């Protein structure tokens, strides 16, 4: 009944507003009490949302969003809350890519397990900051190639290293979740963790098996499968990758 009521309300609003884009897009988010908010798991690289919807495959909008406070993530437009998206990820400000929009709702990719977890957030509030990101990273594991595009045009391409046969680099549509000046591991000055996780390492070191992009002390990795799932890049490539906004899509095929 609640869903029916919400839908009716949406139609009314659309009729009054006149120019709303997608039917259903004006559905108000389900109210979440303080107690319910406390129960919701945090969407970070340490989280696991086994029931989250998978990446719907929508074409990336080029938009990235930053929550200014913990933001509730829903399983669908007007649906059930499944998580809360914190303002930071491993110390960096949270930015998530938008892969579909319906009115004031945005489908975003999440940094949690399982890979390609997605959810919907209500953007009709000033608690969400939006920005435009024209960059995309394309990775071809078979060819050991990493390419950066800007507005669809290639602006650089490099040969990379990927995961060993037993610890393959997972494929799919990931994104850069943070820019880390790594203080403990010394193989790379900057590490760019992705939203994806290893399918074969449930944990790795003290971490949750997060796949990252980083360089390596020597070039032995170039064109080879030598990592535990991470994407190893040359210094030259890393110098360009660190300039990409957080939330930049990384397509891995």
């Amino acid at each position: 009944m609640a869903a029916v009521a919400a839908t009716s309300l949406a139609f009314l609003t659309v009729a009054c507003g006149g120019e709303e884009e997608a039917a259903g897009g004006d559905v108000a988010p389900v109210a979440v009490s303080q107690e319910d908010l406390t129960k919701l798991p945090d969407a970070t690289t340490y989280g696991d949302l086994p029931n989250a919807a998978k990446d719907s495959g929508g074409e990336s909008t080029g938009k990235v969003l930053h929550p200014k406070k913990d933001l509730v993530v829903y399983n669908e437009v007007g649906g059930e809350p499944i998580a809360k998206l914190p303002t930071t990820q491993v110390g960096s400000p949270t930015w998530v890519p938008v892969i579909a929009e319906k009115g004031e709702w945005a489908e975003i990719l999440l940094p949690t397990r399982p890979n390609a977890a997605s959810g919907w957030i209500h953007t009709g509030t000033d608690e969400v900051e939006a920005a435009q990101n024209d960059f995309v990273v394309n990775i071809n594991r078979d060819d050991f190639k990493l390419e950066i595009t800007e507005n669809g045009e290639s602006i650089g391409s490099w040969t990379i290293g990927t995961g060993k046969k037993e610890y393959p680099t997972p494929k799919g549509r990931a994104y850069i979740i943070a820019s880390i000046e790594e203080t403990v591991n010394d193989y790379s000055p900057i590490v760019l963790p992705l939203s994806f996780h290893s399918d074969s390492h449930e944990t790795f070191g003290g971490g949750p098996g997060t796949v990252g992009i980083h360089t390596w002390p020597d070039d032995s990795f170039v064109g080879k499968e030598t990592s535990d799932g991470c994407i190893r890049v040359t210094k030259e490539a890393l110098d360009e990758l660190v300039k990409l906004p957080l939330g930049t899509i990384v397509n891995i095929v």
Partner: protein
Amino acid sequence: MPGLFLLSRRVNSLSKRRLAACGVAAASAALTAGMLFAPAASADEAQNSAFALSATGLIKIDPVPYVDDTNGAAEKSVAEIGAEQQLAHVELLNARAGDGFAKSSVAGLSLDLSPLADLGLSKPLLSAEAVEATCDNGVGSSSLANAKLGDIPLDVAAPPNTGVEVPGVASVLLNKQTQNDDGSLTVTAISIEVNGLQTIDIASATCAEAAEVPEKPEPTDPPGDDNGDNGDNDGDNGGNDGGDNGGSQVGAAPVPTPVKAHLDVTG
């Protein structure tokens, strides 16, 4: 303490080299280093720290998981614990800390308090579906979901230092907030003390004010440096100052500023 600190430094630097050579072998060394660091962390070192669960006395649980920002932003999760003699059961524990920020949480908490005879509860059990403590830029808050001490339901969002009336000689504070000598604030969602001998802290977060947020970086300024030496970056994450989107036009997404942090990715 200095000896322990030096030792932990050495273990830590060893773990770095091992990890560079072979990630998996270094995992336990890195964990060891982290555990040694915890008690050594002094006020002038890590002002931001968090742990999900701790108890001293008859019921003894070392802070778990414990993180501080000695190595920049850090986070730890523990999937499940069942402490000694099955007194405590927790489904998920998390702690994270960074510049001017700390947060800890537990989910599915059940703590058997029956060893504490002085407590005087008819049903000696502390339970909660979820508990969180957050400390952000020197301001603390806490939140409880479906939490009970014995038969006493605990407030979802109690004001700072809210006492709970319990029989016996226990002192129970919700959203306990303590100003520390170094200027940082500690917020503990549930803090129980019994007869001066037993303490139980559920979800604790300590933070100071974040470092000054620098002026907006020039968009053209490359964030990395050129020689692989990363010692000169402020790594400030005091805020996000990227695109300003004052209207329907959104700005360009900001070039990120690398933040000092530690995360073991799959090398």
